[in-house]
């Protein structure tokens, strides 16, 4: 009897457990209010409002005659989720700025092939016809599973700039430095002559951004100083962060060059002489930004690498207005004609991972309709600048001219942006003109300082184009080599900068050791890929 009851209890428990787990598997429905439902995942910046608060997104649903279920994730969140999502094979119907072309080609079953359906998306076809390089960017072995994006053409500018406090220079009667020697003088003056005039010795002459643990270069890394020596970096994206560079069609790694040593020694000198903070190597971004922005009234920093003057405060604020972008000064012993600047311009305009579609999408026609709408002029503009007629207006006399409104700028300053901005899944044709896009205007203005340095190298032979990509096996190989390589090298380099100890002998040690970690193999792999794509 007792046993019977026991067995029954087990049966009931198991049954209940199964029911619960089945109930948990409920899928999102195919239709909502009779309209086909499309789920759209969008990776957003923390300063953007909810999709439900973006007016244009509602119009989009109307025009598409479908219902959109938005899934919104932040950059950080998504960085941790993406690979787990891929492994589970469970992605949203459409994914905006989520998955890269390599990821899609590695998981062909999960992603829909989009190149076979271009006839259903005439706007995308027009995009590729206008910008053939955009197509090249996402094509992997002749297939396209991810669509690229193109912002307003005013964004053809590197995201990396050398920014210097012009007000301080003027006050001290100094010129924008053209060589490292002049730069030394300026830094010394900034650090000792109280240029912000508050009577305190609180000036930071040069404020470098924290070094990363997994690579040598990334956005606004101090190794942008390599451009002073004639080595072209490309820190918006690509293999430049792991040291790869191209000169005359030959791929090499700048970790193995005396130029890097020269830059490390210069950075060491800055710490030693008190021009750069004693802890900058490990200072987290929040503190780094706080230093750049000072107390909101008095500038504290003389120079830094950044996007544009907004690194120091809102556009138009007292502090931000003090800074200008300047050409990078020439390193010791390097003639001006040899100096160059970061080759990330294309990467700022185009990005290669802006829209992908799940192969399991139920309402495929609605999804194609939606993609086509997103890539239309009307919605591309609205994705980047907010709702038409409110945040951005069309010039009544010129349909190809849009004017960004003050309302949008205010929303930007308040960190409540009603648009996707650079995350747009769309494209803006080169013949469209946009006025008042502060981001584009300012970055273009900053980039103008490098006009001459851009001419000091060949855009064909001295940089790794964005569309050069590695095979899966090669990508894993280089990733593994790099993990080991930078695990070893970055602490060594950081130590040299912070505590000194860079001598011929220790430099030779570094060179021997990085060879053991497969640095030459990485170079060969990239050379092979470069040759394949440049043929």
């Amino acid at each position, binding site marked *: 009897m007792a046993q019977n009851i026991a067995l029954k209890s087990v049966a009931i428990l198991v049954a209940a457990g199964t029911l619960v787990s089945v109930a948990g598997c409920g899928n999102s429905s195919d239709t909502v209010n009779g309209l086909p439902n499309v789920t759209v995942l969008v990776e957003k910046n923390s300063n953007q409002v909810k999709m439900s608060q973006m007016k244009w997104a509602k119009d989009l649903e109307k025009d598409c005659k479908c219902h959109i279920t938005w899934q919104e994730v932040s950059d950080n969140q998504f960085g941790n989720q993406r690979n787990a999502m891929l492994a589970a094979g469970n992605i949203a119907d459409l994914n905006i700025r989520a998955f890269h072309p390599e990821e899609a080609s590695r998981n062909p079953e999960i992603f829909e092939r989009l190149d076979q359906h271009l006839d259903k998306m005439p706007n995308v076809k027009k995009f590729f016809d206008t910008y053939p390089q955009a197509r090249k960017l996402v094509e992997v072995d002749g297939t396209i599973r991810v669509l690229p994006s193109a912002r307003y053409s005013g964004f053809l500018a590197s995201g990396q700039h050398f920014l210097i406090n012009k007000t301080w220079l003027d006050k001290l009667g100094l010129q924008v430095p053209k060589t490292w020697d002049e730069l030394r003088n300026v830094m010394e003056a900034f650090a000792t002559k109280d240029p912000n005039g508050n009577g305190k010795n609180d000036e930071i002459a040069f404020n470098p951004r924290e070094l990363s643990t997994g690579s040598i270069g990334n956005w606004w890394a101090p190794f942008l100083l390599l451009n002073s020596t004639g080595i072209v970096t490309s820190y918006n994206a690509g293999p430049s962060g792991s040291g790869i560079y191209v000169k005359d069609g030959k791929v090499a790694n700048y970790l193995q060059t005396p130029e890097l040593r020269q830059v490390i020694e210069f950075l060491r000198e800055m710490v030693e002489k008190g021009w750069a903070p004693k802890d900058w190597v490990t200072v987290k971004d929040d503190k780094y930004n706080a230093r750049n922005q000072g107390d909101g009234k008095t500038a504290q920093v003389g120079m830094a690498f950044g996007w544009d003057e907004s690194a120091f405060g809102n556009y138009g604020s007292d502090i931000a207005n003090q800074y200008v972008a300047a050409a990078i000064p020439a390193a010791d012993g390097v003639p001006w004609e040899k100096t160059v600047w970061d080759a990330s311009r294309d990467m700022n305009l185009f990005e290669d991972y802006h829209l992908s579609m799940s192969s399991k999408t139920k309402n495929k026609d609605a999804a194609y309709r939606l993609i086509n709408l997103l890539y239309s002029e009307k919605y591309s503009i609205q994705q980047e600048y907010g709702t038409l007629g409110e945040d951005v207006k069309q010039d009544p006399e010129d349909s190809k001219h849009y004017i960004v409104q003050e309302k949008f700028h205010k929303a930007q300053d308040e960190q409540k942006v009603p648009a996707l901005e650079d995350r747009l899944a769309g494209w803006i044709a080169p013949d469209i003109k946009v006025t008042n896009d502060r981001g584009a205007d300012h970055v273009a203005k900053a980039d103008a300082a490098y006009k001459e340095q851009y001419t000091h190298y060949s855009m064909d032979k001295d940089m790794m184009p964005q569309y050069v990509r590695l095979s899966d096996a090669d990508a894993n190989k280089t990733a593994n080599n790099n993990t080991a390589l930078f695990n070893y090298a970055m602490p060594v380099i950081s130590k040299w900068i912070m*505590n000194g100890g860079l001598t011929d002998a220790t430099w030779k040690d570094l060179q021997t050791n990085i060879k053991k970690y497969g640095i030459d193999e990485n170079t060969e792999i990239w050379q092979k890929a470069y040759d394949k794509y440049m043929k």
Partner: protein
Amino acid sequence: METKEKAMPSTMSATQAKKSNRSGNAKHRNFGRYWQLWVMAIPAMLFILIFAYIPMYGVQLAFREFDPSRGLTGGEWVGMKYFKQFFESPLFWPLVKNTVTVSLGTLVLGFFAPIILALLINQIHSEKVKSFVETITYMPHFISTVVIVAMLNIFLDPKAGFIGRLLGGGNKLDNPDAIAPIYWLSEMWQHTGWNCIIYLAALSAVDVSLYEAAKIDGAGRLQLIRYVDLPTIMPTCVILLILNMGSVLNVGFEKVWLMQNTMNLGGAEVISTYTYKIGLMSFQFSYGTAIGLFNTVVNFAFLVCANYLSSKLSDTSVF
């Protein structure tokens, strides 16, 4: 002590022999008599089955080439390829060294500190003071790891932090050799109070007449601890030690991950953070699984060894 050690194994084996003689019938009767207990245990057993045993089928990923389209078990069989890759990696020895340093120190400190604290608290007579001390010492246990690391950053700041100013020199968090001690000590500070609760419970079981008898025999405080308290909590100590040995290579991932920076990476890269970088960040699930499996096997070996040694030496064991 010696006679006890020798005597006990013989009694143990006698009962074991009896048990196995009538095992068939006994099981039946046992289930019939205690079915309520079995029912109570079922959810826990199901939990372990579903979340600990069933996922083990995924371990084969370590021996296969992961192919997302074919699932966990569909990839091509590559045998020991990924283990070889890990053992031959230049990072292998540094990783093992860092992991062992960080976890062994935590294990040793984490073993002795709660015992000492429990013995000390047990000496407090006033109930009020006792519960006050207990509460204060176990509170830090509830602080989340992120906050702890932020606190470390603040306290160790050479300019503004009170520990940093005391120690002088550069930031200790930037020193790869200081990472392990910082980890041990902060871990001890955070968890000692919590971990001593179990010993306090064991100590409350001490027969008061034992104290009285010992006092009549002229025992002082230290002698009471030595001859009454310690023997009482010894079995608890040993069991906890064995269980902890099972995680000798398991360094809590979050804390080390958060403590890492460019300067201290040489001492702060441990197996779990490396697995995360390789497995999740660069999408090499097979390689990541192989490293994780290696970690588990080592832990398991330690657990079995500790258990074996302890059952030989002190007659206490988990299984």
